[in-house]
């Protein structure tokens, strides 16, 4: 399994074991519903921010949970107890998304431009603008314009709220690389935001 290394902790006798893991070991189908309810917001949000479209995000998130379930079917109790669920799930999500990009580049489909709104440009700085809910949505949409590795890194860091170490683990790259993807991604976002069409600019 491609995801077998990420999201596994070295020790399985952790006294603060995640109760969801215990339920998964006791009854996989019941425990898995608890897992889905706990993690669906994060998995769906990451899927939404990397794919940029609600329907694709729902498909990717559902596929992620199905793949996770199929992996769990082959795991014994000890291996399940050793999982760190969120990094493990997001590793599956990111790998599934990357694979879909690869097959999409072999079979190009129409780009959902309707879901990539033009960036708003009211002259305010990004940092201030981020305070409004509307701008939050814009920033989310702008993420879809970043190259895939930067997009994944920024989404894991700033949507899923992971540490750089966890981002590196999920992406399967060194921490330095993860850090540079995040900072380059943010720099590109700023540039995209700044270079928005001048016709739309209005003085406040």
């Amino acid at each position: 399994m491609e995801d077998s290394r990420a999201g596994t902790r070295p020790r399985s006798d952790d006294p603060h074991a995640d109760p969801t893991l215990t339920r998964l070991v006791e009854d996989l189908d019941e425990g898995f519903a608890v897992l889905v309810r706990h993690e669906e917001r994060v998995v769906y949000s990451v899927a939404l921010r990397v794919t940029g479209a609600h329907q694709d995000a729902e498909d990717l998130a559902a596929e992620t949970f199905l793949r996770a379930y199929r992996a769990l079917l082959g795991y014994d109790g000890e291996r399940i107890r050793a999982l760190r669920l969120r990094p493990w799930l997001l590793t599956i999500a990111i790998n599934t998304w990357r694979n879909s990009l690869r097959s999409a580049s072999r079979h190009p489909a129409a780009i959902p431009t309707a879901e990539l709104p033009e960036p708003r440009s009211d002259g305010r700085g990004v940092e201030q603008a981020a305070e409004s809910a509307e701008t939050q949505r814009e920033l989310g949409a702008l993420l879809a314009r970043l190259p895939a590795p930067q997009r994944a890194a920024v989404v894991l860091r700033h949507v899923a709220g992971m540490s750089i170490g966890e981002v590196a683990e999920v992406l399967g790259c060194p921490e330095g690389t993860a850090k540079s993807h995040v900072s380059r991604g943010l720099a590109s976002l700023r540039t995209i935001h700044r270079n928005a069409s001048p016709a739309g600019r209005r003085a406040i």
Partner: protein
Amino acid sequence: MTTEDPFAFGDLTEEPPRSLVDLVYASWVAVPGPLGEVFLAFTRQGVEYARPAAALPDGDGGFRAAYRARFGRPLRRADAPPAGVLAALSGRPSRALRLHLPGLSDFERAVLAATRRIPAGQTRPYNWVAAQIGRPRAVRAVGTALGNNPVPLLVPCHRVTKATGEPGGYVFGPAMKERLLRAERVNLDEVGDLARHRVFFIGSDTTRIVCYPTCANARRITERHRRGFRTVEEARAHGYRPCKHCAPAAAAPA
């Protein structure tokens, strides 16, 4: 935010529009069937899997394990079966019944679609199914496809029999096939008697139409007007035409 991350995103997470539990899970339910309880698994796309309790070693636990092994999808219990299931299990065809058959080949789907049209209380031979789907020589492959039927009873593969009239093999064993056919009032004894006399088709000398012996039209023929034939060709030679309802296939049993 730390100084290296000056970009204040705030919360960019949102709830999925509907819970992913509903997308990821299939449902299971136990319903009354012709020979006791039947377990079903279904998604929003339709029924995926059916097994009679009598064929399982371990009740619903055995059913759920078998479904998991075949489909790799978690299951939760539903309150009610999907539309059309109860009608189909009591032998009434239902347009409302939706089947979802992932992982089957086009050939297997065609076999199941043809088999689904066989009415309760009637049987058709394997070569009839092969002829119906335009693959008259693929008789053995039809048998294999029916043995892999994920939704027996809903797609009544027990109504497909050997060309000799014997019930033949079944996914849950020949004894259950015979019980199912007898429960639908298929007169297997009569079919067997006819076969011993090398009669595999029944015609009416008034309508000059030839049928399979279990066809509703054949069963309406009164004793003195019944004529038996070994092959459809033989019947044609006597001026009979094949019934449009049961569409007897040209091939005769060896």
